């Protein structure tokens, strides 16, 4: 079985968001990590590899430094890494990004493609289903459990108040939730091998069946009209009462003042 896992390098918003003195987001000061949903997708692929034997290829699109997450994935157990990087691919929205990744995947053999549901920087959840659409594959989003039986995948697909157990014939694409599993750590041997491993690097010329007009900033149907850091309403009062009685009197007082009670 051949599995492709699409991963993204993202700034770590969970490890504490850093701001510049002027209130804008200091992206340079934040750690770059493998996107959590993608990491769960990678772990799911590695478990299928452990169970049935599989070749796991990790693929990312980004700046040259995004090779770091490919090496991390290989240190966890992925077999091959593919970096798609090219100046003309920059500034892509989800349409142009999914077009690019689909163009790269057309060069590879696969039974199963796994992506994270969404990345913690853009939070769109669009790239996975759009890759499937470009490749003409069935898509199962929001996977909370992935199993393989013969040439089929059996997936628990999460909804708000239920889940569906879905069966799809491979090849297909599944988007993974971070709830899926607890990803394994890199092994020392894995880290050693991953440092030396060769990473395949592809640019625009390597993308298959893709029009220039669908790539990068120029090929993105959505355009940013304005971007700003969010203005929050700011802190109100904070008190440190000496006793629970005092705390309760404070809260009850405020609730009365605001006519809640």
């Amino acid at each position, binding site marked *: 079985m051949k599995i492709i896992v699409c991963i993204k390098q993202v700034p770590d*918003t969970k490890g504490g968001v850093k701001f510049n003195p002027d209130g804008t987001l200091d992206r340079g000061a934040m750690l770059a990590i493998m996107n959590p949903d993608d990491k769960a997708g990678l772990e799911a692929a590695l478990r299928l590899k452990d169970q049935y034997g599989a070749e796991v290829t990790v693929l990312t699109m980004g700046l040259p430094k995004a090779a770091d997450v490919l090496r991390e994935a290989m240190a966890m157990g992925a077999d091959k890494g593919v970096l798609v990087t090219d100046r003309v691919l920059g500034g892509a929205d989800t*349409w142009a990004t999914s077009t690019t990744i689909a163009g790269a995947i057309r060069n590879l053999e696969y039974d199963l493609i796994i992506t994270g549901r969404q990345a913690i920087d853009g939070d769109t*959840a669009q790239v996975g289903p759009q890759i499937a659409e470009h490749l003409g594959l069935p898509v199962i989003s929001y996977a909370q459990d992935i199993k393989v039986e013969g040439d089929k995948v059996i997936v628990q697909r999460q*909804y708000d108040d*239920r889940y569906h157990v879905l069966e799809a014939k491979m090849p297909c694409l599944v988007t993974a939730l971070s709830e899926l599993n607890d990803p394994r750590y890199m092994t020392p041997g894995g880290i050693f091998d991953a440092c030396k491993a060769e990473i395949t690097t592809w640019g625009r010329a390597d993308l298959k069946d893709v029009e220039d007009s669908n790539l990068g900033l120029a090929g993105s149907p959505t355009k*940013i*009209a304005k971007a700003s*850091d969010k203005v929050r309403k700011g802190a109100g009062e904070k008190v440190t009462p000496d006793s*629970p009685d005092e705390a*309760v009197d404070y809260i009850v007082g405020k609730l009365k003042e605001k006519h809640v009670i």
Partner: protein
Amino acid sequence: MNLEEYKGVYVFAQQVDNEISGIAFELLGKAKELAAPLNTDVTAVLIGSDVKGLADQLAEYGADKVIVVDDPELKEYRTEPYAHALASVINKYKPEIMLVGATAIGRDLGPTVSARVATGLTADCTVLEIGDFPLVAVPGKEDEQKHNQLLMTRPAFGGNTIATIACPNNRPQMATVRPGVMQKIDPIKGAKAVVEEFNPGFTPNNKYVTIKEVVKAVSDTVDIMDAKILVSGGRGVGSPENFKILEDLAAALGGTVSCSRAVVDAGWKPKDLQVGQTGKTVRPNVYFAIGISGAIQHVAGMEEADIIVAINKDEDAPIFDVADYGVVGDLNKIVPQLTESIKAAIAAK
């Protein structure tokens, strides 16, 4: 693509188990506002099996027209037959704007359909308005500025940044919209819409998946998005059993219990009670954040509450940066006593 051909504001009227989801009514409310400056009307696209009877409800909430795609293949949501249905509607009727709820269904359907009809899609919007793109005309290129564009505003970066996005050269302009943000109109009793049935034909292909089982979560709780008072607990509550003190407080105030992601991840509470970026956006009158540190992803889902009361033993917890009234202290001591005090205050009225 001849952009002039595309007319009307369309809404995907999500239904589950033949019950229209609240988001459909919210989208209709917003669609009516958007249709006014465009001098156009509002169409709801109702997709399912045996759903035609739901059209009147959509009319009462603002739909001028309802397109019904009714087919046995559409009984439960599956990406492929639904994407085929909605993409076929778009190709036939050519809407100028297509709105979809940013639900677990819409966030799968929207991207698939937008890729199929080759247009842009903006995810999880919180503000939609009609305006110019670029916002300010480039000097000397005033005639290149496009008017009557859909401007879609959304948070990104876990709610830390906010961007306004347009889709000037493709149609329809598509957006998914976060539930709980747009206002539905007061229903107009007896309102009727023009109902049109359309069936593009459904022939199963490789993209059709099989539903082997539907497992519904057993839940008799109130939808937290409808609650006026929410008593929300985080990891600091300590155990699932200890949520009892929050439930007592909620009961005293006529409110509902909700929780943070950590609580769902720990298996203490079901997913449908989760507030935040990957849960629900809530805007109650009062939000109690109890033992919740206030990660940015949580704050993104509750900061629009009118009054935020936080109780946390960590005086540096980020929740205090958004709380109107923050109390540093032990929730185990404060909450039960608060419940008794509130009961007494209400009884004394």
